[in-house]
């Protein structure tokens, strides 16, 4: 038997056993987020092996654990209302610093593209406070090419969810970003949001994405769309 992964291996079963580790595990979770059949296989294995977890001797937690949970879930500690958070995003400086960067990227792309080719219509540079993280190029039909600036991966067990936000509008989920280059098909971005200054943002969410349809977690990087050619805006 070789050390290479077995082609017929039941990856859902290996995942539930805890034998997919590190990047392999994160990739598998990202796949589950996109593939309901695979997610269902995982759930079937969780059910099959559950009696083993129930056979482990229970341990009574110390009182501090519940106290901390109660603090974190009490209404006082609740996250700010979505509208406030939205305003925060728009007011956030690092987002708008992306404009200068995106402008530079757009200029560079323009210089490289022969006239008349079907290059991107819009670009965005998604940044954190520390600097640029992803470049986003969008064609007029809404198809997106997203490329990381360095080596990046979402936290273990999480996925990066992508949002488009028009000014004064609720964020619209438009897909998931992979650690490497990501291509998203045309039309995932609603036509009305394919315009300059639509904000493209990324949140860290559980596999499968935000359960509420709104970003549940803080924005980790974001940047506004800017037109590549002056005529497209």
């Amino acid at each position, binding site marked *: 038997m070789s*050390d290479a992964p*077995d082609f017929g291996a039941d990856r859902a079963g290996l995942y539930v056993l805890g034998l997919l580790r590190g990047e392999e595990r994160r990739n598998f979770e990202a796949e589950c987020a996109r593939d309901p059949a695979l997610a269902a296989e995982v759930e079937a294995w969780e059910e099959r092996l559950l009696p*083993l977890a129930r056979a482990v001797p229970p341990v009574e937690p110390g009182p501090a654990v519940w106290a901390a949970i109660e603090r974190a879930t009490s209404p006082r500690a609740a996250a700010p209302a979505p509208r406030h958070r939205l305003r925060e995003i728009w007011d956030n400086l690092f987002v708008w610093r992306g404009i200068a960067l995106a402008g530079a990227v757009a200029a560079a792309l323009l210089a490289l593209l022969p006239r008349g080719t079907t290059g991107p219509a819009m670009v965005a540079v998604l940044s954190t406070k520390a600097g640029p993280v992803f470049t986003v190029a969008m064609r007029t039909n809404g198809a997106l090419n997203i490329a990381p600036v360095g080596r990046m991966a979402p936290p273990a067990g999480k996925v990066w969810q992508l949002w488009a936000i028009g000014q004064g509008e609720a964020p619209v989920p438009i897909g998931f970003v992979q650690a490497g280059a990501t291509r998203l098909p045309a039309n995932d971005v609603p036509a009305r949001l394919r315009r300059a200054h639509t904000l493209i943002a990324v949140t860290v969410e559980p596999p*499968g994405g935000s359960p509420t349809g709104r970003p549940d977690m803080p924005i980790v990087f974001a940047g506004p769309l800017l037109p590549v050619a002056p005529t497209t805006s």
Partner: protein
Amino acid sequence: MEDGLGLLIEACQRQDAAALRELYRRMAPTMLGVALRLLRDRLMAEDVLQEAFLQIWRNASRFDRARGSARAWMIGIVRYRALDRLDSERRLPVTGDEIPDIAAEEGIPVEDGRALAGCLATLPEHWRRMVLLSYIEGYSHSEIAARTDTPLGTVKSWIVRSLDALKRCLEQ
């Protein structure tokens, strides 16, 4: 069957704090037992338990009774959280040599575990041990190989074959 756990999770979807408290009362000891077994560090395990309950609270709406039991959903959350920790932090090596055979028939709750216990019993003993070392103790392929003095490829292959055999047996 599920002692109303599903109903409690659905109440958490409506921000019912009393329902979360009741879920905690019923499930936290089992979940901490599982996490502690995987991590072997009480502080880390309690930390993971806390994160798991916050995740249950926030993601209660993702629970879907049609897709699986409430108990499996909650145990899954705490196990993946604990495995995240195992990925990011090297844990201390275990001192005890033998792991108790937790899958011995009397060790598994009868109401839902008999089928699994029966099927585990049909596996060769070293295969069964590898399944338990991974699921319960959180050992990786290479840790199991070192611990059982078995070549890595053989470990991988036996575990894959154990999964196939268990699935077939449980579907009968």
